[in-house]
């Protein structure tokens, strides 16, 4: 239990979309250990991105409890929440979201600057992180001059630069061609194996998910299958209903 990075108990998220009430997450519980590489799969609207946003503290839970590194984030006000985002979470987005007017190195440096880390040696560290993702020599390139695969690698370097407890990747390969897709997933898997980085990745892609150690299937705001634990929620519920029958 000491190695739990993330512990979610009975998480429910409800919000209003006009007059309609939407409930993307229903009574969801999940535990993630340090060093796990987890894929979250499921159809559109199953609540994958909402789950990631709530874990990443950019969206609020309606009820339930989320603990990151044993800190209960569901009770934190915004004045403290940003510190969790800053210190514990590294986001990787489908469309990269690099700051367009900063070059590769500056994008990585910005993460360190916001986190207040490595003062005085940020330039050097940014170079190292970019080297880790294979972008040596491209430090001065602005996002517009980088290919999409390269942009996503800058985004990974940016997430790594903060040394976060969890990296949250929302369809990181969604906008990439086959070659780049494989490279990025390989890179994430490598980071996970060699550096022990905890990664939770939302993806549609079975091939991409196959690179991970654990696959969660979401449907209608609930986890219906957790592959690593060999606990097949679907079969479980089937057997239960059989018993009842």
């Amino acid at each position, binding site marked *: 239990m000491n190695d739990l990075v993330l512990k979610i108990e009975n998480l429910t998220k409800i919000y209003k979309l006009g007059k309609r009430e939407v409930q993307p997450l229903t009574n969801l519980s999940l535990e993630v250990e340090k060093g796990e590489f987890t894929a979250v799969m499921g159809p559109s609207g199953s609540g994958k991105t909402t789950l990631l946003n709530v874990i990443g503290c950019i969206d609020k839970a309606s009820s339930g409890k989320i603990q990151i590194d044993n800190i209960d984030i569901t009770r934190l006000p915004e*004045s403290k929440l*940003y510190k969790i985002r*800053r*210190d514990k979470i590294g986001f990787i*987005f489908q469309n990269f979201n690099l700051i367009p*007017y900063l070059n590769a190195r500056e994008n990585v440096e910005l993460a360190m600057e*916001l986190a207040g880390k490595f003062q005085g040696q940020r330039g050097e560290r940014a170079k190292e992180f970019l080297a880790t993702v294979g972008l040596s020599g491209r430090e001065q390139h602005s996002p517009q001059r980088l290919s999409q695969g390269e942009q996503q690698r800058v985004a990974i370097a940016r997430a790594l630069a903060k040394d976060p407890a969890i990296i949250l990747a929302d369809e990181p390969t969604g906008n990439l061609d086959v070659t780049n897709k494989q490279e990025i997933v390989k890179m994430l898997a490598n980071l996970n194996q060699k550096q022990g980085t905890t990664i939770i990745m939302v993806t549609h892609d079975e091939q991409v998910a196959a690179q991970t150690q654990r696959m969660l299937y979401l449907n209608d705001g609930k986890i219906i299958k957790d592959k690593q634990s060999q606990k097949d929620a679907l079969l479980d519920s089937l057997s239960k209903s059989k018993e009842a029958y």
Partner: protein
Amino acid sequence: MGILTRATKNLSRRKTRALIVIIALTLALTMLIILPPSINAREALTRQAFNGLISTDSNLNATVTMSATEIQCDYPPFFNTSMIGSSGTSNILTQSFMNDSLYYKISLIPDVTNVIPIFDVWAVSYGPYEIYGVPVENASFQMDPTILPANITDGRNLQVGDSGVVVLDEATAKNFSVSIGGTVTLSGHNFTVVGIEGSELPQPTHGITMSLADAQAITNMTGQASAYKIFVDNIDNVNTVITRISSLDPKLQVLAGLSQLNVAEPLQNQISELTQAAQNNLNQIQDTGLLEITVAVVADVAIILFIMLYSVRERTREIGTLKSMGASNATILAQFMFEGVLLSLIAAVIAIAMGVFVVPTLSSLLLPTPVQTAVGMSQLPNGTIVLTRITEGPKPFLTGNGSNVISASITPEIMLLGLGAAMLLGALGSLYPALKAARTNPAEAMRYE
């Protein structure tokens, strides 16, 4: 890399937009920076004119009051027929003088408070020079300062107790080839020149001014005077005193200052109209200036407000990204406010540089022309008060070539104030957009396309 680097990089990403915004801000800030010194300079000119008018008005009032209780009496000049050679005659206008006995008789008339003898011997009577004697033996002559030379351009005027000294008018000094401290010899007496009387005023000058006793001595006319200035204790008694003086000698010409009251009224009206005009001008300068400053301030704030609102909207995803990376609300607020302040400051620097060159042209476009009318008052020897109107602008405002100069300039203080104001306005204009940015919900921002 700090907030400044990021702000600069973001501005330089949209060069054309930044340029247009900076030009617009520069126009507003140039107005803002040049207006206060321009208003001050114009105000100072008008105020100076205004104060001049007020002081002329009070001089006029004092003179009128004094003149009204002042009576002047003398003998009118007459034509003296004398033989020229053996064949013809010539008429020469000749002065007559009054002697001490008349002086004492007048002094004894009830209600007369003071009698000042004036001794003015014309040039035709005494060599080529006019000799003018003033009773400086005691201070009573100061009751009517108009009897002294009015426009001393060098040295000093006559003082109480002066003896053996003279004030020369410019022409006479030139004839004698003397300056201050020099000596002139008149009828065998030596006199030291202590002052020079300028000849610029409309009031006629006297050739040589000296003490009454000196003047009487060198002309061998001790005890005589060409005119008396008689002071009455009260306006109501003036007519009685005039009758008494006339009865002493019917040949006496007695002039009362009472007539000045009638003359003075239109003059006073004239001055009060000018004063009112100057006051209106002062108000106009202030009102126009204030309005324009308000416009400049509002324009500056509005430009920054709209451009920053647009920027915040355009950069919603960036804000979401920054927040998801752990930027605090304060960081985002500071980032956007700083960009607004930076825009305003860049414009202010250009505005200051421009302001230095365009102050005279622009300020005359923006503000009413200051009133520079000055009115001088003087009294002719017969006591008539005259006003001299100088519409060109009084001397202190004239440069060597005679043109009016409004000396508004962008001083270092104005520059600092301008920069401070630009910073403040930049902060004010970007406050709301920056708050909006800081309050952005990151999850929504990330969905924003």
